[in-house]
């Protein structure tokens, strides 16, 4: 990367900076004229009528002669003045927008480059840097650079030029006054940076001290019992006072210096007019200077102050940005950073398609940053199509071997080859498409199951997105802008899925294939269960809706069986459903639009009128306060963004502080709360599910009154809400409800053991049609996995990691202890199915359980970074005193 911010700016925006400078230079004559015109008006049109004819001079040269009266002359000059002011304003507007755009483009480029560099970091670098450091560097720390980039050259030129023009103007009017106007500039140029530097240092010291203050407060809170037990309150108070004192003195010093600079600037600013008034006035009286000239000089001087101030602040900003840029980019240049070509380059023709998949390991060594030898001369040949198990103790280096074969970690010695090619010379376009690697900790990007499974097929767009109408132009602009900022122009909205690699014709076939690979890793049932919790649109799939209603009838028939009735609490218009939310109970239905959605229901005026009518408003407020109290109590100590918020809390992490404040205000009485606070509290009880949350806030008395509200709600429902709600109706498919709730026409009982599994069995019995299974699976594939796969268990995440490798149909499949968390039975099944799927293609599987190796054609046994035995598992198992045999007997 460019070592300084100025080099960076010049490299990527030289032409634009030059254009900007040209526009600025172009604007100067207009500026000069707009300064000159008032003098002309005062002196010629008002003060000294010598015409007609009147000459209108620009830059002192007569360009136009006016045959008219004095008034017309005055009006003409005034209009020219107005025009000049307008042109100046427009030019300034153009320059400002252009600067902003330029800055934003370069900032975009810088961020893109930094992010690209993160992707190019060698993997071991991530052990040294913390996310907490890197993220703010790209997001907030470079932000001020954007503001500066546009002004880097323009400001000194624009403001400096303005300054010079105004100065020139004053000098032309009178050299002595001109000299007087700038007499103090050298002093300011010398003094202000010096004073400011000290202020900056003090500012940094203040931040350090405030951090220390925070430390002390934290320490006192965690050790408050000690303070009381040892009667050391005085000591702590005095320590705190001392720290506050330090901050006070620094602050005081800052104020003194800051305001002294201000005083100095202001004083010098006002000192100059003193000379204008005294010397200039004297010159006017003596007749050496026209009165108009003095007025113009005074006006010009007033204009001088602003560019001068801007120049000084540009200087300060430049210093600040220069240091920041340096600090950021030094973090982004680690040794061993990957070439852009290897990350993004396409394979050259010769390598493409013809890479031999025989893996050769020649004397591979790997020494980590702490000097530990992870691999020590590992040598082996793995022919194409072999199924190889790698076994050994946890620290034998077996995992590092897989990482090295995947090309993720270049070995420190020896070589890993694919056919003739060294793996570390091949671009990711080869290794990342023909090899599939899954490690012991799979990361799932936020999205759906289908997104997670197809992640390994998205190397580049295969089919352009279709744009229509205004979107076409928008996309063109988007591409143009991205290119201007040096970003990639690949369309994120395009279809990226490489169907050919998955050996399918299109999306439909891909979906069936996804279901196949899910079955291979034994995840299909889990996805099916999720699918049952998904929704379908009955208008688009009336056939499915009809079949679901048939299934509902079958369930209904079996509700007499206590084994079934205890699992499901049916929707009954006359009864309160303790497994549904309060909102669902009052509406006796589900929201379709936004008006009655979870976020808006509490503020819906009709709903509030109903609550008021049955006298529930006060109850909701009280319950809301208690819910908020409990949530704040149990979730306050979790870090924001913790997945428990999404899964369990009534209140999101961002809203928690606000509710803390509301509770503070509520402690003075609920009646005193403002409308906004009341709405926030009343919204909480709507989310309550008594059977699940067990907060004891929804007793039977309340339930009876909620039923009353239900009746009132349905009776007077206004027309505009009719389309916003789908009532629970035994005869109809409810489009707002999940497939499962539609089948059950009720809710699973939260309090029944194994209810989910038993209901699953029940549904499987009533929903036997295979076609419906596909619909449910498809809904399951569309269900979200949560940020970082947080809605999945670790085992499910690992299964997806393996499944998406299978979907890629790689020539080499590397599985690095990815099934270690499975229990033995499941591991057995998954190994069998994966090997079966990969017949004829290479599989290298690092096993945690050596006994599993008998399923493979080859075994590599590792010890202390070396491959100590290799051969077929049957042979090695019989070798007396062999390492493999020993491993088998350990288990």
């Amino acid at each position: 990367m460019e070592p300084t911010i100025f080099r960076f700016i010049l490299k990527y925006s030289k032409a634009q900076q030059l254009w900007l400078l040209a526009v600025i230079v172009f604007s100067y004559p207009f500026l000069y004229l707009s300064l000159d015109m008032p003098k002309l008006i005062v002196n010629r049109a008002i003060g000294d009528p010598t015409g007609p004819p009147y000459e209108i001079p620009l830059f002192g040269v007569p360009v136009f002669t006016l045959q008219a009266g004095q008034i017309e002359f005055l009006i003409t000059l005034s209009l020219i003045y107005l025009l000049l002011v307008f042109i100046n304003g427009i030019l300034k507007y153009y320059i400002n927008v252009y600067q902003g755009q330029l800055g934003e483009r370069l900032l975009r480029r810088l961020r893109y480059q930094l992010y690209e560099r993160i992707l190019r970091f060698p993997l071991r670098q991530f052990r040294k840097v913390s996310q907490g450091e890197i993220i703010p560097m790209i997001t907030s720390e470079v932000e001020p650079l954007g503001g500066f980039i546009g002004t880097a050259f323009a400001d000194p030129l624009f403001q400096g030029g303005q300054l010079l023009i105004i100065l020139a103007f004053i000098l032309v009017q009178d050299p002595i006054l001109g000299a007087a106007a700038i007499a103090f500039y050298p002093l300011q140029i010398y003094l202000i940076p010096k004073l400011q530097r000290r202020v900056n240092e003090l500012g940094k010291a203040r931040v350090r001290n405030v951090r220390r203050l925070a430390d002390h407060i934290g320490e006192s809170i965690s050790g408050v019992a000690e303070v009381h037990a040892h009667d050391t309150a005085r000591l702590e108070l005095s320590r705190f006072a001392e720290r506050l004192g330090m901050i006070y003195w620094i602050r005081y010093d800052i104020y003194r210096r800051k305001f002294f600079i201000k005083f100095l600037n202001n004083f010098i600013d006002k000192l100059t007019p003193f000379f204008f008034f005294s010397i200039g006035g004297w010159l006017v009286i003596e007749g050496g200077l026209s009165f108009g000239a003095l007025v113009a000089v005074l006006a010009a001087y007033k204009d001088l102050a602003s560019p001068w101030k801007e120049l000084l602040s540009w200087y300060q900003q430049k210093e600040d940005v220069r240091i920041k840029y340096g600090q950021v980019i030094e973090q982004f240049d680690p040794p061993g950073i990957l070439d852009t070509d290897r990350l993004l380059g396409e394979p050259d023709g010769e390598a493409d398609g013809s890479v031999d998949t025989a893996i050769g390991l020649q004397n591979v060594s790997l020494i980590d940053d702490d000097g530990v030898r992870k691999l020590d001369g590992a040598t082996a040949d793995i022919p194409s199509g072999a199924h190889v198990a790698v076994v050994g103790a946890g620290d034998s280096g077996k995992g590092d071997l897989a990482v090295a074969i995947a090309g993720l970690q270049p070995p420190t010695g020896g070589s890993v080859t694919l056919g003739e090619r060294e793996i570390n010379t091949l671009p990711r376009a080869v290794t990342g498409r023909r090899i599939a690697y899954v490690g012991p900790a799979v990361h799932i990007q936020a999205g759906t199951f289908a997104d997670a499974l197809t992640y390994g097929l998205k190397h580049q767009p295969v089919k352009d997105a279709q744009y229509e109408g205004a979107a076409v132009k928008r996309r063109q602009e988007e591409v143009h802008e991205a290119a201007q900022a040096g970003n990639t122009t690949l369309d994120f909205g395009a279809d990226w899925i490489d169907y050919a690699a998955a050996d399918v014709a299109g999306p439909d076939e891909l979906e069936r294939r996804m279901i196949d690979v899910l079955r291979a890793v034994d995840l299909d049932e889990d996805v099916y269960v999720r699918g049952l919790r998904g929704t379908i649109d009955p208008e688009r799939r009336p056939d499915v809706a009809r079949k679901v209603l048939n299934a509902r009838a079958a369930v209904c028939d079996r509700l007499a069986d206590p084994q079934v009735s205890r699992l499901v609490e049916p929707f009954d218009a006359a009864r309160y459903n303790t497994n549904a939310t309060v909102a669902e109970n009052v509406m006796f239905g589900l929201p379709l639009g936004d008006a009655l959605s979870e976020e808006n229901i509490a503020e819906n005026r009709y709903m509030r009128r109903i609550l008021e009518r049955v006298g529930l408003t006060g109850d909701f407020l009280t319950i809301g306060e208690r819910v908020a109290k409990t949530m704040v109590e149990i979730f306050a100590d979790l870090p924001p963004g913790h997945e428990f918020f999404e899964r369990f809390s009534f209140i999101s992490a961002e809203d928690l502080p606000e509710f803390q404040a509301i509770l503070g205000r509520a402690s003075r009485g609920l009646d005193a709360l403002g409308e906004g606070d009341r709405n926030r509290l009343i919204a909480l009880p709507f989310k309550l599910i008594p059977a699940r949350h067990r907060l004891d806030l929804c007793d039977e008395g309340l339930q009876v009154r909620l039923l009353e509200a239900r009746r009132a709600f349905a009776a007077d429902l206004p027309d505009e809400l009719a389309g916003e709600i789908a009532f629970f109706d035994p005869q109809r498919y409810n489009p707002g409800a999940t497939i499962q709730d539609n089948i059950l026409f009720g809710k699973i009982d939260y309090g029944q053991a194994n209810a989910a599994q038993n209901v699953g069995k029940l549904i499987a019995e009533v929903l036997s049609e295979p076609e419906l299974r596909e619909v449910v699976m498809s809904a399951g594939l569309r269900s979200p996995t949560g940020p970082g796969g947080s809605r999945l268990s670790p085992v499910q995440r690992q299964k997806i990691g393996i499944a998406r490798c299978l979907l890629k149909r790689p020539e080499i499949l590397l599985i690095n202890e990815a099934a270690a968390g499975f229990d033995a039975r499941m591991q057995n099944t998954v190994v069998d199915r994966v090997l079966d799927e990969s017949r004829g293609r290479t599989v290298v599987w690092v096993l945690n359980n050596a006994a599993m190796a008998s399923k493979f054609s080859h075994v590599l046994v590792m010890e202390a970074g070396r491959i100590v035995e290799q051969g077929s598992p049957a042979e090695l198992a019989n070798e007396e005193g062999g390492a493999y045999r020993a491993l088998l007997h350990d288990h």
Partner: protein
Amino acid sequence: MSLQQEVELLRKIPMFANIEPAQLKLLAFTSERLSYASGEVLCRQGDTGDAAFLIIAGEADVTIETEKGPLTVATLGDHDFVGEIAILCDVPRTATVTARSDLKALRIEKDLFFRLIGEFPEIAKEVMRELSRRLAHSNAQLREMAMSLEKGGEK
């Protein structure tokens, strides 16, 4: 039975006795309270353990498979805590737990429990302390057994 009462029950378990009330409440809130019919199985020997159970009301039999068929080794009652070893390490269930009567239990899921420990290391510390106490206890028992065996040998 409300969340607050579940918290009180959890607090009676030595492993949780010294944990902050707010964190215990979080543990209870993220757990499920389940009803089991008589004869229903809470966990089965040999399965991977995915949860621990706090029995709120009811009785359960603990049985182990032997060559001569299932052998009941213990009966659990109100406020007993079972299955905690399985949520602390990846070992298969060492016994089967079956509801003997209609039973209510708080099911603490392993995954959630671990995330909680990740957030509040104090919980891990308390758990570690309790486990060490148990280890010391079983060591003492072993020593006693060894000594009585030796004495037996001398005779």
